């Protein structure tokens, strides 16, 4: 069943892309005093830690607020596909009221996770703005009108395909894999 994996990013490419995303954030936010970086559990949270660290190295300044958001209780498929994902920690010990939020996730696909994330975010106040950063944007098969503001790589893939982001902190290696026969990569 499992298809042969193509490597979209090796470690070096992944690091370079994260660096580019960091610079784009710096470009748009410059002064980080009102910026919140919030990663969606679980890979988005790891990725946001990585970005926070890298921003410190590149810029000596980081978003003033950094958190993790679990969206399990906000999923719209609860009780529908008979799957509970066990909830993970939400660590947001600040209000996002009038702040500029950057939401971080690994893969943007149907958009439903982000929708749940936006709904979950609204429990912490009314933000001035919310931006979305994703490492991989699977452009087809979006179910909702949701787009990313910062994108690592755009991938055109049919529904059966599968994109997996591996991060050293969880998977032991840094790379992005693509499982399918057909693939077109636009960078």
């Amino acid at each position, binding site marked *: 069943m499992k298809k042969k994996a193509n490597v979209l990013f090796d470690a070096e490419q992944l690091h370079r892309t994260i660096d580019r995303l960091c610079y784009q954030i710096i470009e748009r936010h410059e002064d980080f005093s009102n910026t919140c970086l919030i990663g969606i559990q679980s890979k988005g949270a790891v990725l946001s830690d990585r970005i926070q660290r890298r921003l410190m190295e590149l810029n000596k300044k980081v978003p003033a607020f950094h958190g993790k958001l679990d969206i399990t209780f*906000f999923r719209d498929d609860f009780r529908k596909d008979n799957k509970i994902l066990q909830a*993970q920690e939400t660590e947001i010990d600040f209000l996002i009221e009038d702040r500029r939020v950057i939401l971080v996730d690994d893969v943007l696909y149907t958009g439903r996770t982000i929708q749940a994330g936006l709904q979950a975010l609204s429990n912490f106040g009314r933000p001035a703005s919310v931006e979305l950063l994703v490492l991989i944007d699977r452009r087809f098969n979006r179910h909702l009108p949701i787009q990313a503001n910062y994108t690592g790589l755009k991938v055109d893939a049919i529904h059966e395909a599968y994109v997996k982001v591996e991060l050293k902190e969880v998977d032991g290696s840094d790379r992005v894999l693509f499982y399918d026969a057909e693939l077109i990569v636009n960078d």
Partner: protein
Amino acid sequence: MTKDRLSTRNLIGIKDLDLNDINLILNTAQQFKEVINRPIKKVPSLRDVTIANMFFENSTRTKLSFELAEKRLSADVVNFSSSGSSVSKGETLLDTVQNILAMKVDMIVVRHSAVGAAHFLSQKVKAQIINAGDGTHEHPTQALLDAFSIKEALGKVKGVRIAIIGDILHSRVALSNILCLVKLGAKVKLCGPPTLIPRHITSLGVEVDYSLDSILNWCDVANVLRIQTERMQLQYFPSANEYSEFFGITREKLDALNKQIVLMHPGPINRGVELSSDAADSPQSIILDQVENGVAVRMAILYLLANQANA
């Protein structure tokens, strides 16, 4: 790593839960505790679920706690209490429940003075049943919130020395607590007047110690139970004063220990009988934390059970 679903579709008693179920509930409750401390304490998970709270016996904490848990999960809630209902006209439990179910209810939280009431309903009706106390039998949600509170106070349950003190005989809290804590690997001892300790209770893996002094010196946590006079048809001890003298927890008895133990009580407290006011209101008491945790634990139970509707 725990599995992420329960092994049961009803919560009748701790007896039916395995260790994985208990850990799953406690871990999920941890996340809900964070939710109920947010500025907006609500999640949409159960917005398509209707829950009936059916209390055939008095309750303050459990009823409010369930209702809040249900509302914070966005469920629709109807409340029933037997006083003022057609139960006084002679309607049976099953008839009452079936009439409520005809109104399209998905889950029933039931408290009843008859042992086995929740189990009986689970055999007869399609809705999911959650036992909120059946007579002197079980009160599973209380045991789970007690375990959660112990874990929160001490960082673990396994290996912790827990004393359950008071009216063990009439207490569903005691039975559910014993089953839950033993499964979690705690060391449990019971203490109370011999008349209020069931004879074969040690077969559940607990020990009995009739001396309050020695059990207080032994334990890390004392869970103090109420004397349930409403369930007593006999005189089990001479007087409340005498009970308090021998088994009541007071500031003096706590100060005489060379350590600080954690004090718990499932409520309602008979102040001055099993627990004096200066003990109940002291910093080492986590009685009000238990109440707060009750909402989080019940949210976890409802959430996890809702996913088992078709199981």
